[in-house]
């Protein structure tokens, strides 16, 4: 049973997870996993409702699932961002549910059986989402939900505090430390738009489609394209 989580206590737990080899956003995700008793967590930021930046994950499985969600453009994180409400999918194997079928298939293949999305809200603006993953099916308890809301609030505050120290026009360094597949995705999108003679929007669709059809993480495909090892035309 998770005790009622206070923001101050969570901040202490995050500090305890701080490690010189780890970026601050990933420390926050690990603390979240510990406190809430889930198997994985990830933090993503959105800008303009379309572009997505991965800022931290607790582990490799969560990283893979987040990348897959970005590839597909569907899943609890995307839904939480758009609805500004928590999204619960307690059993990804439950075939009666018609939501995000491809996401469910991919997440199950990665060993994730339950997925939850919590919006990162600042006043009424949604800046991204906190995603929780579990390796067994099952709903979150009330305490876990209350805890997740506290974590999401702490995460939003941390993001803003980091960004407050960033030079104008730049993204805070704390948001750049995690393996941010976003950067390579954007570079690859630029390259593909030239290679295929299409718009940037279409180029991103093409990149996602390639990653999906080849069953590869979009970050890997994007890295290959950005470095000129792969052409999509």
């Amino acid at each position, binding site marked *: 049973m998770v005790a009622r989580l206070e923001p101050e206590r969570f901040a202490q737990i995050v500090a305890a997870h701080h490690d*010189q*080899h780890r970026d601050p956003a990933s420390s926050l995700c690990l603390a979240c996993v510990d406190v809430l008793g889930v198997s994985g967590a990830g933090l993503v*930021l959105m*800008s*303009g409702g379309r*572009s997505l*930046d991965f800022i931290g994950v607790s582990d490799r499985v969560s990283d893979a699932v987040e990348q897959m969600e970005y590839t597909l453009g569907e899943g609890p994180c995307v839904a939480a961002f758009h609805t500004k409400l928590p999204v619960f999918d307690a059993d990804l194997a439950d075939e009666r549910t018609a939501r995000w079928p491809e996401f469910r298939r991919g997440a199950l293949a990665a060993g994730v059986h339950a997925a939850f999305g919590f919006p990162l809200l*600042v*006043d009424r*603006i949604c*800046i991204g989402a906190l995603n929780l993953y579990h390796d067994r099916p099952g709903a979150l308890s009330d305490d876990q939900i209350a805890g997740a809301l506290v974590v999401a609030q702490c995460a939003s505050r941390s*993001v*803003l505090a980091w*960004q*407050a*120290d*960033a*030079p*104008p*026009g*730049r*993204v*805070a*360094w*704390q948001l750049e*430390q995690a393996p941010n597949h*976003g*950067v390579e995705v*954007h*570079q*690859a*999108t*630029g*390259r*593909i*738009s*030239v*290679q295929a003679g299409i718009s*940037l929007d279409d180029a991103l669709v093409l990149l996602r489609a390639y990653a999906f059809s080849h069953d590869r993480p979009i970050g890997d495909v994007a890295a290959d394209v*950005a*470095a*000129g090892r792969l052409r999509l035309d």
Partner: protein
Amino acid sequence: MSREQDLLAAFTEFADTLVADYDVVEFLHRLAERCVEILDVSEAGLMLADRNGTLCYIASSSERMRLIELFELQHDEGPCLDAYRTGVAVHRSTSDDANERWPTFVAHARGVGFQSMSALPMRLRSDVIGALNLFSTAPEPLSLEDQQVAQALADIATIGILQERALSDGQVVTTQLQSALKSRVVIEQAKGIVAEHNHVSVDDAFRLLRGYARGHNRLLGQTAVEILNGTLASEALAEPTRNQPA
């Protein structure tokens, strides 16, 4: 030009930059590049402390330098951190006792071809706000004269940062975050477009974009937007631009 003239030209250039509407990161990138031109070093980079006193990467003369600076931060060891923490300049070669002090860092630095390094504290009265890192593929550390010049360049960086901090207080952070994220997307996409058009690496594409922005007195973000909407052709970036003051 003699070294003294180079240095004077750099000082004049930076003094001209410090007007109301300037991009501090661009300023620091340029400073890093000037360090490589003026001093006998291969790469230069700058790190700055945030408000909590944690050192952060801010600018570098190349992607290779950026990566090694991030490596220093991640492993919490290296000359830049020492210069920042002690406020005293560090000059070392990877073959001497540096190995004991920074075992992980030295092994990595050697692996990517560096043999000596210096780090100069960026001081403001009794505070240290960051450090200038200078790395070389040659084994000899900086000469005494170069050490003094390097400190003068670190002082220029300090002045630039103080100026910017005075201007940036009171920003609305959420809006700033959104626009910073958006601006980064645009810059990364523009890098990809230029890399593909001009058959260069993404790193070189960034250099072309910055070179053009600088040569035409525009902000980097603005130039990237023009590449994206097609009002600026990628080919135009390859043309040589004036980047030395007359």
